[in-house]
């Protein structure tokens, strides 16, 4: 056991896998010598050598395409996209290629790549360093989407993703890299060291994809969330005194529907929270599944607290970013009826 923040936990996952499996290699923009703009690949090149962790041209499409070709060869590339806001030049290679190669070859070729990329707001990054485009991946048959919320989960889920024989989009909540941000930007920053999930085994371990975690038990309302919003939601429950059950999905595809349905059948109410704009966000899929599978248990409509349907504004970081108060208000909405 060691105490790690999320950056160190992710770094450790790659370090362990590069060590264990000669087929694992890591690359991306500034990911080699420098160790990444968020330092997540720090030291990997020095420790494991030039070809195990290296820099790439500024071509997200090339990073993903090269990763696909390597995966087809039989390697397990871990690709870093510097910010998910910059993943769209690679969108065609992800959607038309990585997601479909197993299928169009009837299993003859497979694409075991992991695409790591920071997402989400809370850092005054403005419209091109704050986006949460998860639903643009969950709609694509053939892609899995993972979003951790703690150092412990981050490492275990990343190792599972690397070992997965299908492409995985691994979204890293950058606002959680250094601490469990609860949405109170006006309060002093809490480091991970104070959080139990920062105790992380140094070695190999996995957390299965497709299993949600109930991070707070409660009877009043089920809150479905992931990434940074998990900590905001728990804080909202504590501060509002609403006895919410907070479920951290951890994996959006495949989805742990059972855990969701069991909880909503218990509470009878449901709130979905995410940073992405509301329209056609992943919350729409969650709300639709909940109303279908828990129809007779629902005492109020499933509510959504999501990002506004606008790009992410720079100066209005804290107007746009979802804090505990907005989440609590959403919980109350479900209770009012």
């Amino acid at each position: 056991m060691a105490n790690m923040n999320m950056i160190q936990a992710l770094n450790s996952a790659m370090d362990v896998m590069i060590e264990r499996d000669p087929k694992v290699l890591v690359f991306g923009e500034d990911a080699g010598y420098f160790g990444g703009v968020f330092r997540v690949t720090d030291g990997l090149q020095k420790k494991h050598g030039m070809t195990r962790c290296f820099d790439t041209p500024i071509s997200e499409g090339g990073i993903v395409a090269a990763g696909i070709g390597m995966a087809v060869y039989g390697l397990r590339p871990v690709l870093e996209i510097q910010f998910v806001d910059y993943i769209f030049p690679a969108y065609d290679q992800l959607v038309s290629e990585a997601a479909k190669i197993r299928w169009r070859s009837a299993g003859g070729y497979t694409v075991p790549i992991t695409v790591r990329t920071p997402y989400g707001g809370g850092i005054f990054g403005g419209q091109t360093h704050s986006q949460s485009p998860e639903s643009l991946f969950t709609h694509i048959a053939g892609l899995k989407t993972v979003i951790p919320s703690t150092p412990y989960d981050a490492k275990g889920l990343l190792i599972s993703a690397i070992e997965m024989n299908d492409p995985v989009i691994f979204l890293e909540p950058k606002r959680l890299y250094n601490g469990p941000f609860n949405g109170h930007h006006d309060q002093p920053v809490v480091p991970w060291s104070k959080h139990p999930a920062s105790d992380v085994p140094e070695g190999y371990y996995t957390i299965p994809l497709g299993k949600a975690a109930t991070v707070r038990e409660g009877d009043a309302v089920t809150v479905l969330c992931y990434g940074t919003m998990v900590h905001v939601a728990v804080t909202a429950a504590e501060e509002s005194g609403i006895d919410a059950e907070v479920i951290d999905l951890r994996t959006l595809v495949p989805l742990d529907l059972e855990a969701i349905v069991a909880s909503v059948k218990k509470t009878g109410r449901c709130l979905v929270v995410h940073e992405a704009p509301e329209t056609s966000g992943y919350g729409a899929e969650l709300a639709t599944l909940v109303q279908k599978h828990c129809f007779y248990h629902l005492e109020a409509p499933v509510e959504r607290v999501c990002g506004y349907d606008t790009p992410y504004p720079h100066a209005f970081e804290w107007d746009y970013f979802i804090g505990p108060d907005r989440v609590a208000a959403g919980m109350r909405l479900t209770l009012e009826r």
Partner: protein
Amino acid sequence: MQNLSKPRLHIPVPAARPGDTPDFSRLEIPEAGSVRRPDTASDPAEMRDLAYDLIRVLDFDHRAVGPWDPRLDPETLRRALRLMVLDRAFEERMHQAQRQGKTSFFMRGLGEEAIGIAHAMALSDEDMCFTSYRQQGLLIARGCPLIDMMNQVYNNAADKLHGLQVPLHYSFPEFGYFAMSGNLATQVPQAVGWAMAAAYSGDDRIAATFLGDGATAEGDFYTGLLFASVYRAPVIISVSNNQWAISCFAGIAGGERTTFAARGVGVGLPSLRVDGNDFLAVYAAVQWAAERARSNHGATLIEFVTYRAHGHSTSDDPTRYRPADEFAAWPLGDPLQRLKGHLVALDEWSEERHQAYEQEAKDEVRALQREAEAIGTLHTGTKPSARAMFDHVFEESDWRHRRQRQEMGI
């Protein structure tokens, strides 16, 4: 007329449209044998001229001349010729089958057969190919059973892709043939990645990838060239410049201002421009590039100048946008006839043997076709199970796929 010198939007126009007489005067054709052949270890900066020239071995008197002559023995040449005949017979039959409604769609490489077949013969069978849809001959040359290809075209019960894919979007791992994509040029940077992986693994297999003149306009083509240059990947990037991209002549793809081989010069890659209807020139160029790649000198871009003799696909009618007799006027001729002429000139082949083999090939194809059709065609006979569409999304299908499969009752 100051306006004349003002900027005006320039739209490239081909030399001839339906009704016009074909005009290929824009294409400069140097003497066969006139282009130098640098050592395979030479510096790309020392051979930029090759991107603007045209490597030719077979002259118009059927002789093989110059430094690029690969000096292949007659048996090898006969094998190449037979493969071209067989390839053409196969594509001809499948095309007819589509016309008869036995499948939805088909595409032919008529007039471009030398390219795929010469690659297959000049590369090792272990080298990995990321093709477009006009290199079916490559698969045939590597010994892929025609019946397996037919079963895919018919999407019948024996289709190894279980009916999931569009005709001729083959995938044959056992023949180093990557699952063809319908999305143009995506395979180019993938092939480069595969080659990077081979180099990473200390493997001496190389990759080859193919695309058309039109597809070179996609960003993925540049991306592939760039990564190949930066990481010195052992890969051959082959552009079939067959003059047309559906209805657009190569000028719309940027062929008006320079050659397609020049794209490689732009990123510092050695770049060759080759007569694509000259089997010997194609073979020699691929052999040269393969030797470079295998000896750690990295990638080569090759532009093959050829002509798309048939419509783009079975959905296309080329007489709507180009002169019907354009292929007849194509100065580089028919690769099959040119190789045949060479063999006959060498006294290693004859009209009689040719006709006999053509008949043999037709009969073989027809027999296999009957076999395939006995299993089924797109709308008749035995089909694969629709289950396949759920089984191959992920290694382990999730609850959605199980539910949806049940809903479909399979």
